[in-house]
């Protein structure tokens, strides 16, 4: 199928608004990817500073991981009932060794949302008398209907509400609000150690430790969602290391396989598992995934962790993160009308934009210079953070290339009147309900689908 035929299929058999978006943004088809670069079907290549929001943590098709998964695919890819493969066992042992405290039971799932749901069920069962969950406003924990119950981002949740009651949302970084919400104790507190998504925010020092203390004092479970932050993205192997906290469960996904497979794991503390099984007599079917934990996926994960450790990519993320963040701040300092702030830690960085139109404009102009950024696609966020998440294998030269392109982009956009972005923002807020023909005309799409 050629590009037009593929878009037509997307329109008719998959996701109509995605098809419209492909047309109006003049997207091409992905073909292959290696290292920091993605290649399309027309011979173009793009520097990937989006990384699917953190999935391609060691770049694309990294050869060390490739070797391991290609070998595994020739042996056994899917887990048979009742047995386990060597790499999965090694991965479980490795995670237990890497994580603090007694976090040593790996519950494998297929996606972050599945792992979040598993943690949610475990929390409810651990203390059946408690119904309340505390979640951070604007947090992201997956979009299954089960996980939506505790999703902070209202844009994703609202079309499906009302959902579960007894969920309280508190602002990130506000310990007084957290203390009030926890009160005498809740079922669980879900926390991203660094708030991710289009709300990227680094917490004040000690914030995580204070939450851990509140949870311990009240017997509330603490669940760390490190789907976006782990494996060096935030400059440490796990972001909980910044405050040396030990949650009752930690959820890992995105970067775990170095961009090779869908995977997630909820690692539970020994003490919590014992409580669930010995004291609560939990039905084990509540804490399982029918199809998670496969040799192919787990082989990729084990190889990715080995590679990250061998190459000291966490240290590299800190070093190069400083270079990237400093550069972004220098470039954007002259454009306060477009960029309000440049938050970040490690190689988890971004531009807090004045509005979604600015985020879109920067993304598009950078795209024309063959650099992909992590656009939030969140027109509900007043000031979305445009994410710069390069692979941890990114070179200094590639960072400088990105910064040079950003400088050109800001110069170009900075000369535009503020009113243009205000008007564009109104358009962006309504883009999915506007007539296609109007959008095509506006964006120079030639064919009339």
């Amino acid at each position, binding site marked *: *199928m050629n590009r037009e*035929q593929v878009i037509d299929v997307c329109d008719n*058999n*998959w996701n*109509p*608004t995605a098809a419209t978006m492909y047309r109006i943004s003049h997207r091409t*088809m*992905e073909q*292959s990817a290696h290292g920091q670069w993605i290649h399309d079907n027309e011979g173009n290549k*793009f520097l990937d500073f989006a990384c699917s*929001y953190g*999935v*391609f943590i060691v770049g694309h*098709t990294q050869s060390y991981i490739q070797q391991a*998964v290609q070998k595994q*695919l020739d042996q056994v*890819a*899917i887990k*048979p*009932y*009742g*047995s*386990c*493969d*060597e790499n999965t*066992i*090694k991965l*479980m*042992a490795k*995670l*237990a060794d890497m994580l603090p405290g007694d976090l040593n*039971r790996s519950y494998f799932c*297929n*996606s972050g949302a*599945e792992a979040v*749901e598993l943690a949610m*069920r475990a929390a409810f069962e651990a203390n059946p008398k408690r*119904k309340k969950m505390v979640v951070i406003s604007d947090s992201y924990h*997956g979009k*299954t*209907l089960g996980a*939506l119950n505790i999703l902070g981002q209202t844009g994703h949740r609202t079309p*499906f509400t*009302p959902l*579960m009651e007894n969920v309280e949302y508190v602002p990130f970084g506000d310990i007084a609000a957290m203390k009030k919400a926890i009160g005498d104790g809740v079922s669980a507190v879900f926390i991203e150690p660094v708030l991710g998504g289009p709300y990227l925010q680094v917490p004040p020092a000690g914030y995580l430790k204070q939450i851990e203390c509140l949870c311990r004092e009240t017997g509330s479970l603490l669940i760390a969602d490190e789907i976006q932050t782990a494996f060096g993205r935030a400059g440490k192997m796990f972001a909980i290391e910044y405050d040396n906290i030990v949650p009752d469960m930690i959820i890992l996904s995105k970067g775990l396989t170095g*961009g*090779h*497979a*869908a*995977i997630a794991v909820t690692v*539970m503390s020994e003490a919590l*598992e014992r409580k669930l*099984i010995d004291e609560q007599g939990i039905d084990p*079917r509540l*804490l*399982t995934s*029918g199809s*998670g934990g496969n040799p192919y996926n787990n082989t990729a994960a084990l190889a990715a962790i080995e590679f990250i450790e061998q190459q000291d990519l966490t240290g590299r993320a800190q070093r190069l993160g400083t270079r990237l963040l400093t550069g972004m701040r220098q470039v954007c300092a002259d454009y306060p009308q477009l960029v309000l702030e440049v938050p970040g830690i490690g190689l988890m960085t971004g531009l807090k934009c004045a509005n979604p139109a600015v985020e879109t404009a920067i993304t598009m102009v950078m795209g024309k210079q063959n650099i*992909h950024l992590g656009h939030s*696609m969140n027109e509900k966020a007043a000031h979305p953070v445009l994410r710069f998440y390069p692979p941890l294998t990114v070179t200094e030269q590639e960072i400088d290339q990105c910064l040079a392109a950003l400088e050109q982009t800001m110069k170009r956009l900075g000369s535009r009147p503020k009113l243009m972005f205000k008007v564009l923002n109104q358009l962006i807020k309504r883009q999915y309900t506007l007539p296609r023909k109007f959008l095509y005309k506006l964006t120079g799409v030639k064919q009339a689908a």
Partner: protein
Amino acid sequence: MTTNIEQFNAHAPNSWQQEFIGKVVIKAKNATLTYQDGSEAIDLASGGFGHQQADITQAVKKQVALMPLSNRVMISPTLAEFVKTLDQATPAPLSVSYICNSGEEAFDGSLKLAKGLHRDRFKVVVVRGSDFGSLSFASLFKEINAPTLAHLPLKPVFVEANDEEMLLRAIDDETLAVVYEPVLVGDDITVLSADYLTCMRELCHQSQAIMIAYEVNSGMGRFGVDFASELSGIAPDTLVLGGALNGGCVPVGAYVTRKAINDAVYGDKNPSLHGSTTGGNPASCVAGQKAVEVLQSKKLSARQSTLGQRFSQELMCRDKVEVKHLGSLVLLNFANHKLADSFRQQAVAAGINIARGKENTLTLKAPLTITDREVDTAIATLNQVALNLFENKEIA
């Protein structure tokens, strides 16, 4: 030195430990598993597609070398090819697919679609005895005894299979969805009748409730047809797939629904409302696409009926065990639970893996691509086990 088994016991979740047979798998081909200790087993426990189907493995390996996961900024041709294939393979009028990471996610996604259509409805009519996977709503609908599942916002109302009167009483204007498996496997194999599903279809039409068929177990040929919905000829509003769709290679799930329903919920919404980080990734789409192609080109559905007949006719324990089958799924009913479990344990010891059963029943679920030779070995071994169990003779 710590052994693999010791490490497994130290770190594996309780649910895995309960079914662990103490073996580390190093290789698998069709239905044959090879273990680290050099022993082999034939897998009649996992079901699924079957391992190392050359067409599928080679295509997946090629895609993995190029681009296993999508960057999600650009257009994905592998996703387009897969959804087009699903459109052609599934019964009309189903045409729009949501591709995700597992059958579990696909079922949840189908509920999310229904909730998006009927935001203020919470009642789900559930055909009792169906399987819906392992996520939260699935656990609630499978009647797992966990009062905390009541915290979830959807409220199940259970109906019995093939009882039209119950359907009439249960489905109303407050019903969000009706969820069922077209074939229920418990202590019997129950096919939902055409009359029952016609009644359900009409009631769903009247109430606008979404009719959701969970075909993670029954889809892809297991019961002698590509999708078990074909047995009654009644198409659901949403068909949920997973399991064997992975081609024995890369997990993938999908639901396929009617365009009008999808458009009503997602047709004018931000596309990111309806996707996930790794859902619909190239490696999984290639695995799913090839699995459907092989299902059709090798006529695997028709072959399942032949396999089931072979097991049913050649297992030599007829007077002691009631044997039933539909497609290649075989049900063994024993006089009591102890006997069933002894049979299972001896079968496993003799190299034929069978999953733990419920009550007095064991289910044999061969991979779709089990070879004739593997079937010969499995039947001969199980006959030896039966002989030993019922007549106390040694296994040869």
